[in-house]
């Protein structure tokens, strides 16, 4: 027993010494801060909340593609963050708080963490092995910020020895905790008068861009046309300026009493005829209307007002449509008129919505990729956008052919490689093992076409450049001479294809707005609302669809009221109460995965006999047939009536009332308020990207999202019957089997008859 006592005692002493050592630096680091007192507890990082209210804080992780902490390795490592800033935002004060940990084997006076903004070094933090963990607060002067993307660089210089050290030694590292490091800033109002050229900046995805906007129309049936056809254009115009960031659109009607006072958002949008505007605006605020017109004016206190008007209702709609096409940079005034073109009915140009067609070849330059040159040692990534049509369909063994032009300079050492990926699938690797460098023309790579999914895809080229590792630690090159270049003259060739798709498919809807956004940019279908107070969420959703389609959806209407019968291709937003109609009965929305639970429409959730929780059927459940389940009424299997609570459900299925292959998409919730909130959660990047199957149910803040494939697939195809036939047979080989059985039976009969006749012929002669 005694020989155990001594080691235990030693261990105890060692433990206490360590605790003392660690406690000291932590307390010291807390004292280093010298800027304004930061809030004691940091607000939890709101993932998608890039653009925040005038005064606020945003974590650095919001600007980084990779989750988790940032690790800067080797002798000189750096990482860039691109922080968008609205041009209309006036920065008063920006403070960057960094929480970092560095390796304990660094030399204190030769290891530094530098912070640069737009290539200008603003601070250098000494990395002290005695206090490996620390937190620094750095003021980033407002004058160094500029509209658009600002480049924030964190760069380290790390040494562990005075001379003769290995530049890629494993002990050279510094870690920055991106979720705990944040940017807190203070925005002031725009000093100068605002003009239409600032509309893009007002709704920019960066800091200071508006996340919410309220659209106002005159009350009464007279403005129904505007609400139905003009508001969707306005919502899309503003959402497109937000590019990828979400935009919540609210809607209010103004009455003769005046504009509503408590309107959220710094920008108000008024859509109406001059006579309606005159009822609520002072005469000096009324613009002179000589045609379809849009006006942006200041209303003081950092607020502004966008007026979309025209002499007639058609002109107001034309003005709203014009907004979706207006190039902000070319309209420096605060007012613009869109003269009506003759006809005026032509479809909108397909600007920005290029997706690759089957059987064609595209140079990378045409896809918006510019020749990229990567210099210096380290790991880099080049991304080439590959936009695919939403209904691109071809034979599954068809191959995509890449002919790449790339080159790398001399002096690359061992471990310098190129990896080619499509989305997340590795397709090819190339070792840059020629020390004199090499240049490739039409370097051939083929990969199966089914790696590309509808909507946006990317060819990712991971580059790792390493200098030659030379003998001993003294001799080591910085690797600044290393160079890899990918040229935009590379070509991608897609195999022959047709236009066909399997619907319903929410993933395809999220990736491209299909089928409500037709391939030629024309809107295909109508948005129906259960009640007028759902116009806001409908416009929010329409704006997000335009962002997905990367262009305005021409001719999409938002109609209040559910027509009877609800035929054709439709997007319905309604509360469960409003879906109570008899003709909605046959919606076979079944909530179990495998065997269809023919299940009445969502509104049957309303009268719940059991708890609200949506139960999951499954093969196991069906086979198991647990006794506890209630007796299943005839073919309806299971009927459950329960409320949606605070959740919303988005489901898509073939419109029973529609003819052929019209799709019906229903967004339902308990009350309009809940529906608006859930739609707002839906358009966030986190939730919108996870849509799949044909039923999605999600709760507050996009939590516990549930996606299912419940209703039956059907095939939609436009111009290639053979492809459509293939699609149908591939999903239902039973048809082929029946045909084969029939033909073989008939063929056998005929052959047998021929042979029998020939045999009788023999008998007669032998």
């Amino acid at each position, binding site marked *: 027993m005694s020989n155990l006592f001594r080691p235990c005692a030693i261990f105890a002493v060692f433990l206490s010494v360590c605790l003392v050592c660690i406690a000291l630096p932590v307390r010291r680091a807390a004292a280093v801060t010298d800027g304004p007192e930061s809030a004691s507890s940091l607000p939890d990082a709101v993932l998608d909340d890039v653009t925040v209210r005038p005064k606020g804080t945003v974590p650095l992780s919001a600007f980084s593609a990779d989750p988790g902490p940032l690790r800067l390795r080797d002798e000189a490592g750096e990482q860039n963050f691109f922080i968008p800033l609205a041009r209309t935002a006036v920065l008063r004060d920006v403070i960057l708080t960094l929480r970092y940990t560095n390796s304990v084997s660094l030399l204190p006076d030769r290891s530094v963490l530098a912070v640069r903004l737009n290539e200008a070094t603003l601070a250098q933090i000494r990395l002290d092995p005695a206090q490996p963990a620390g937190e620094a607060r750095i003021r980033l002067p407002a004058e160094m910020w500029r509209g658009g993307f600002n480049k924030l660089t964190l760069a380290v210089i790390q040494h562990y020895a005075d001379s003769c050290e290995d530049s890629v030694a494993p002990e050279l590292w510094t870690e920055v905790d991106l979720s705990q490091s944040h940017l807190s800033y203070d925005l002031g109002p725009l000093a100068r008068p605002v003009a239409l050229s600032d509309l893009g900046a007002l709704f920019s995805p960066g800091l200071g861009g508006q996340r919410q906007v309220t659209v106002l129309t005159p009350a009464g049936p007279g403005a129904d046309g505007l609400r139905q056809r003009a508001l969707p254009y306005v919502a899309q115009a503003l959402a497109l300026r937000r590019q990828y960031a979400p935009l919540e659109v609210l809607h209010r009607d103004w009455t003769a009493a005046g504009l509503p006072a408590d309107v959220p958002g710094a920008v108000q949008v008024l859509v109406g005829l001059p006579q309606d505007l005159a009822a609520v605006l002072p005469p000096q605020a009324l613009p002179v209307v000589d045609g379809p017109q849009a006006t942006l004016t200041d209303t003081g206190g950092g607020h502004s007002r966008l007026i979309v008007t025209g002499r007639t209702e058609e002109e107001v709609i034309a003005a709203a449509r014009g907004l979706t096409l207006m190039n902000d940079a070319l309209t420096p005034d605060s007012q613009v008129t869109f003269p009506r073109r003759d006809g005026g009915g032509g479809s909108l140009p397909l600007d920005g919505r290029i997706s690759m067609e089957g059987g064609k070849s595209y140079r990378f330059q045409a896809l918006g990729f510019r020749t990229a040159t990567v210099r210096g040692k380290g790991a880099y990534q080049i991304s080439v956008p590959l936009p695919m049509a939403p209904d691109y369909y071809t034979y599954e063994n068809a191959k995509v052919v890449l002919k790449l032009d790339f080159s790398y300079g001399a002096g690359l050492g061992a471990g310098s490689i190129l990896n080619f990926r499509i989305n997340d699938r590795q397709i090819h690797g190339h070792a840059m093992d020629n020390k004199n460098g090499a240049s490739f023309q039409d370097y051939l790579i083929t*990969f199966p076409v089914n790696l590309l999914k509808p909507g946006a895809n990317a060819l990712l080229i991971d580059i790792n450049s390493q200098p030659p590792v030379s003998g001993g630690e003294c001799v080591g090159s910085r690797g600044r001479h290393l160079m890899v270049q990918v040229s935009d003259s590379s070509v991608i060739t897609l195999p022959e294809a047709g236009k066909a798709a399997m619907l319903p498919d929410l993933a395809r809807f999220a990736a491209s707005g299909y089928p409500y956004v037709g391939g030629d940019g024309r809107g295909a279908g109508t948005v129906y609302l259960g009640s007028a107070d759902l116009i806001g969420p409908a416009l929010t959703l329409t704006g997000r669809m335009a962002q997905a389609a990367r262009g305005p959806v021409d001719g999409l209407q938002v109609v209040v009221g559910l027509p009877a019968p609800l035929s054709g291709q439709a997007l319905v937003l309604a509360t469960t109460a409003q879906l109570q109609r008899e003709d909605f009965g046959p919606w076979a929305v079944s909530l179990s995965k495998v065997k269809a639970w023919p299940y009445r429409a969502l509104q049957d959730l309303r009268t719940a006999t059991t708890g609200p929780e949506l139960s999951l059927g499954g093969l196991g459940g069906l086979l198991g047939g647990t006794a506890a389940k209630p007796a299943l009424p005839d073919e309806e299997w299971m009927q459950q009536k329960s409320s949606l609570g605070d959740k919303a459900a988005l489901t898509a299925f073939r419109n029973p009332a529609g003819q052929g292959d019209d799709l019906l998409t229903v967004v339902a919730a308990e009350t309009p308020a809940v529906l608006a909130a859930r739609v707002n959660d839906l358009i966030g990047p986190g939730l919108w990207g996870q849509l799949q199957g044909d039923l999605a149910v999600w709760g507050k803040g996009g939590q516990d999202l549930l996606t299912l494939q419940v209703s039956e697939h059907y095939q939609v195809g436009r111009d290639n019957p053979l492809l459509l036939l293939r699609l149908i047979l591939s999903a239902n*080989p039973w048809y082929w089997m029946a045909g084969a059985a*029939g033909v073989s039976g008939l*063929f056998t009969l005929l052959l047998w008859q021929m042979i029998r006749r020939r045999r009788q*012929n023999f008998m007669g002669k*032998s």
Partner: protein
Amino acid sequence: MTVQTRLSAAEASLPDASSPDLSDGQKPAAPSALSRVWSWLGWGLALPGLAGVVLVPMDWSGQMMAMIAVIAALWVLRTLPNDEPGSPLRLLVLLLTAIVSLRYIAWRGLFTLNSSTLISTALAVILYLAEVYSVVISLLGALVNSTPLRRPSLMLADLPPETALPTVDVLIPTYNEPAEMLEVTLRAALQIQYPADLLRVYLLDDGGTDAKIAQVDPENAAAAQARRTTLQALCHRLGARYLTRAENSHAKAGNINSALAHTDGDLIVILDADHVPTGDFLNRTVPWMVKRPDVFLVQTPHFMINPDPIDRNLLQSFRRMPSENDMFYQTIQKGLDFWDSSFFCGSAAVLRRAPLMAIGGLAGQTITEDAETAITLHGQGLKSVYLDRPMVAGLNPETFTAFVIQRMRWAQGMTQILLLKRPFMAPGLSWFQRVGYMSSLLFWLFPFARMIFIFSPLAYLIGGFDVYNASTMQILAYTVPHVLAGYIMSDMLFGRTRWPLISEIYELMQSIFSLNALIKVVANPRHPSFVVTPKGDTMAEEFISPLAKPFYGLFVLVGIGFIFGGWRLWDDPVTRDMTMVVLVWNTLNFLTLTAALGALVERRQRRASPRMPAQQTGTVLTGAGVSCDIDDLSAGGARLLIDPSAPQIPRKGDLIRLAAPAPQAGRTVMLSCEVCSVFPLRRRLALGVRFVPATEAEANDAVVLAFGDSARWQFFLDRRVRPIAFTTALSMIFGLIWQPVLLHARMLRAAIRLPSCLQTRQGSTHE
């Protein structure tokens, strides 16, 4: 064993077991107009329907599901009774397998030929053409063999008594065959049961022609003269007639044509020098000529009493396994007979003189004059008959070299007919006769396909050309069902006469040599000269065939393919699954090549005329007489099994008399024999005896006893023509192919050490 039965007394012999397919007298009802309309309507519906079922595209998932259903249906249909010729179930199975294979070919053609580089596309197209060729051959074979015809046995006794039998000339062409072999054939021909005054046997000696005798080289001239003298004496002694001619133009065809001028029999029987006829040869063939004047040919199968070189060197199961030509003579010829396109095979056949003389004798344009003559006469509307009863006993070439020479000549001849006579366009042939002939002629182009199947995987593994542009799932959905359907079809059609994987070995063995022969023929159809097949060789001890070098080359190349395959598997992740598939393909080639190497080790074979099993009893007349069983029998001797406890057991060197019943001759033959060896065997005492005939009659009796009984050949055939499960065949092949490889290695080492290897006596016969 005695069995008391009231029936045995009444049944002296058994009526022929095979149920007669064809009986006399019924007149076929002419198809009514309505049924003709129905059949045209049916075909109008069925053909586009079939095209639709074959061509409609499906993703691999749908295709795999459909193929699983079809293969499942085939699996069940196979167990239902479908060996009744032309039965609907049999036709349905053939049709379903055809649909699977046609879908595979359509898919290959439409979706998998697009490669990235020009060379890959070219190689892919060449491979595709080879696959189209093999599917066409299997479909033609399916149609031809869907309804094999079993003709009833017709004997001379069945003819009306007053029928005037035709005169028959038996022509036996010879070139360099030994006199002892000719003596056996002549004796057997002379013993054929037929009215003596109507039967004449001629020996057509091309070895002793005037030109040979007058040739410049004195030694050969003397040998030719000696040969002529010997054969003339032999004919005289036996009572046959000796014929020769001025010079050796047009080889065998010329020899026979010149004999036709000197003979006048109504019917002509052509027998090769090594084809010994049974006693009932004319008894069973002449009635067909008498009953049907439009018949110009009655062909009978070539039954071989010695294994071919590949069977002897590798398989070594001559008695238990169907031999290579059983497939043709036991199945394909019966299928061709139904479609009236079974053709003359050069020997063991009866021809009608009139039509033959009308076309100027045997056609000499190609080196396979038999098939060529048959096409010409079929084109004139005449009919052919095929009897599937073995009534001659021939010899396979002994060495692999001889085997290859024979097969090269057949391949060249058939390709010549394809190019010169063009049966698909020849006038006078019906569509099913064209199908029959094209099926037989196209078969001989297999060397092209076989070589492409060997080199394609190597092109991918070594050269990196993607010759097979498909994913693994597609291979599972299209290629595997195609291979399964092919096996099911061949198992149903040829299951009894050709065991699985045997075809691949035989075709590979012939491919390398037949390929360059075919290329020469295609280049110049009139070029190839007649090469005589050497037969009757005996080998003192084992040696490696001189033709083994190309196989060593292929063996090494396939090995290199494996090395490159392994590297490609490791190096290129994107094409890993395709590389796996091609490696499996390369492994199959490797196994076939290993088997081929096994067949190239020529095994010892000392016996000049091979022994055949006999199931007869006899009596050894020594003292009271000892009953014995004749275990095996040949023209030269026999092995007798006697009870060890019998009194007066003869000793080695004794002269004994053997009495054995010869049911085919209807009498008991007495032979004097010399005991060469006495040894215990299977709990009895075996006597190895050699016949020492005292008189000519006794020599004839030896031949009658050994070769006269066709029932004995039929019995021997029936025991080895039987189906076998695929797994059993696979394990048999695997078991066999390894020791020859070790043997090769040992012999190669020995050949390197030993400066010169012993050469064997090379004899050759005229075939």
